[in-house]
């Protein structure tokens, strides 16, 4: 059976001009470099990394906001990476996106009803009545009171409410897959659980799959089924949440985890210290993490590691793990 989403060797390069005079100069910066992943139905895959690692770009590639420079994306077995124009727009009811900023996510000139029902107007031919019914249904599904909200404007609503409405807008065409890009980062701590619990409910009760992009590994632990750790455009570790968080294999994962403070005054922080480097000097052909890795060995400078399994549910791109595994 086909996985819901299957991405193969996705690549997205950006050209960065090196000379201000020559418009044709430029280095190719790989924002996403040969990333492959699968997402099943009713699954939440967490994508964790720091800013600049390419996680947002990967989200944009899967939702086809941007086109990959190489690689393929299969949705329910069909290629979507080359869709364009009208076909792409029509396809959009299957894959949706939730964004980070709830305060900017709703057009201030429209009522909640108008905003939420816009996808219906785009994709279906329904009567006004039918649209209103579907809107109310979707609002209730996300724990909101339709009668109170449909006539309201965004400026009267809190960040948490606005984000929930963005989610309503995203699910109204019954998509199978949603990319959630840092959906709770800009919300107060006391309301984050609402959103996170809602996403989990949508997975459990409506079989919607999510790509949950975040820099906060603790929230990823809370709702994700599997976890991918991303560094400078590549996956360095991928596996179930339990596997990755209880037995982190990649040095970067270990450092990331130790940098997250626990809500406990007696929590002893990490003793890890990332090497400081003046510029992200990536040695071509070497492991991307080599310049900063505290556990690096000789081979790391010469050969780029690929994702290899250490258990069926857990892959890691690191020479240390693979060489240790191969030790007799």
């Amino acid at each position, binding site marked *: 059976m086909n996985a819901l989403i299957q991405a193969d060797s996705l690549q997205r390069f950006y050209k960065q001009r090196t000379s201000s005079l020559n418009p044709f100069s430029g280095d190719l910066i790989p924002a996403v470099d040969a990333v492959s992943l699968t997402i099943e139905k009713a699954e939440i895959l967490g994508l964790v990394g720091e800013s600049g690692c390419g996680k947002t770009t990967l989200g944009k590639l899967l939702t086809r906001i941007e086109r990959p420079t190489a690689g393929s994306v299969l949705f329910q077995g069909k290629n979507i990476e080359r869709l364009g124009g009208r076909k792409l727009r029509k396809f959009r009811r299957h894959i949706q996106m939730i964004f980070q900023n709830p305060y900017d996510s709703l057009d201030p000139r429209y009522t909640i009803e108008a905003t939420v029902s816009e996808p219906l107007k785009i994709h279906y031919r329904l009567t006004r009545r039918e649209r209103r019914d579907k809107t109310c249904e979707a609002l209730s599904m996300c724990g909101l009171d339709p009668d109170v909200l449909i006539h309201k404007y965004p400026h009267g609503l809190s960040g948490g409410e606005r984000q929930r409405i963005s989610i309503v807008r995203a699910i109204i065409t019954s998509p199978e897959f949603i990319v959630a890009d840092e959906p709770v980062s800009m919300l107060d*701590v006391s309301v984050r659980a609402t959103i996170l*619990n809602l996403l989990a409910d949508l997975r459990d009760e409506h079989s919607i799959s999510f790509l949950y992009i975040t820099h906060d590994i603790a929230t990823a632990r809370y709702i994700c089924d599997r976890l991918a750790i991303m560094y400078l455009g590549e996956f360095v570790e991928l596996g179930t949440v339990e596997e990755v968080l209880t037995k982190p294999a990649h040095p970067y994962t270990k450092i990331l985890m130790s940098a997250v403070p626990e*809500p406990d005054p007696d929590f002893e922080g990490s003793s890890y210290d990332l090497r400081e480097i003046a510029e992200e000097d990536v040695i071509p052909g070497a492991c991307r993490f080599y310049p900063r890795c505290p556990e690096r060995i000789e081979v790391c400078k010469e050969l780029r590691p690929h994702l290899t399994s250490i258990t069926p549910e857990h892959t890691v791109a690191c020479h240390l793990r693979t060489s240790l595994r191969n030790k007799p």
Partner: protein
Amino acid sequence: MIEVKDLTMHYKATLGWVKAVNDVTFSVDKHESLGIVGESGAGKSSVAIALLRILPQNGVIRQGKVLVDGLEVLSLPGSTFRKEIRWKKISMIFQASMDALDPVYTVGHQLISILRLHRNVSKKEARKKAEAAVGRVDLRSSILNSYPHELSGGMKQRVMIALSFLLIQPSVVLADEPTSALDVLVEDRVLKQMKKLQGESDLSVVHISHNVSTILTMCDKMAVMYAGEFVEYGEIRTVFRCCAHPYTIGLLKAVPSLRAPTEMLVTIPGTPPSLIQPPVGCTFAPRCPLAAPICRETTPPIVKLADDHWVRCHFARDIRKEDVHFGTL
């Protein structure tokens, strides 16, 4: 050290007075750090603004006493405060401090000129001090010759920490969300640096953040702020173990953990109240699962639970963490 008593500050808005800070009282000794935790709109940044006396045009300090090393500073004339207190006895570091560096001058030039503006030192001496200071935040002294845009966010913020913690040689440092704009790994490093500097000096640090975990791991004392007032205050381990205010309990239960067994995260329903017309009685009552009629009528008293712990709640003595249940959606 710094002692604050009954600090109250309001803003005038078109619809009325925004009661941003009400009766805030705390003290921070030498070598000590206080963490002020609260969510957006709680008034934490307003406390910093009031202490530094950098109020906007429509801000008014209604009452309060602030003693820095025994000297009352709120009643000083503005010019005296500017010359002798701000950036001398009290320094600050904000979330956007790293962007406060002027892009057309080198980092070194800026640090040196700021230092010479506030202290009587020669250029050479200032340079030496600057080199020493950036060294203590683990930056190479060559950084002084760089321009701000050549440095990463974390590096810039560390430069600002070197400035406000060390170069200025203050008694008190106010840090308002100093690491919120930084990535996790960078934040971890910067916080470690801050903690190290705290330990090595006589400073009193007031650390403001919305991140409960940061405060719990960094500070000695904690104040929980809601709707313009402190609802719980005390030594950090005491507050953590015996927290008695429902808001504090809710806040702690809303934070996901990476290591503890997974539990359903809690949501505190509703939204913070309007600061122009705060509710009668307890400001948290509309959202509190334990609210009783008395909570909606009378302002809760400050109940001392221990020498180093007080709570603003009618039922402070009876509340236990396990009894407080919030919803999950």
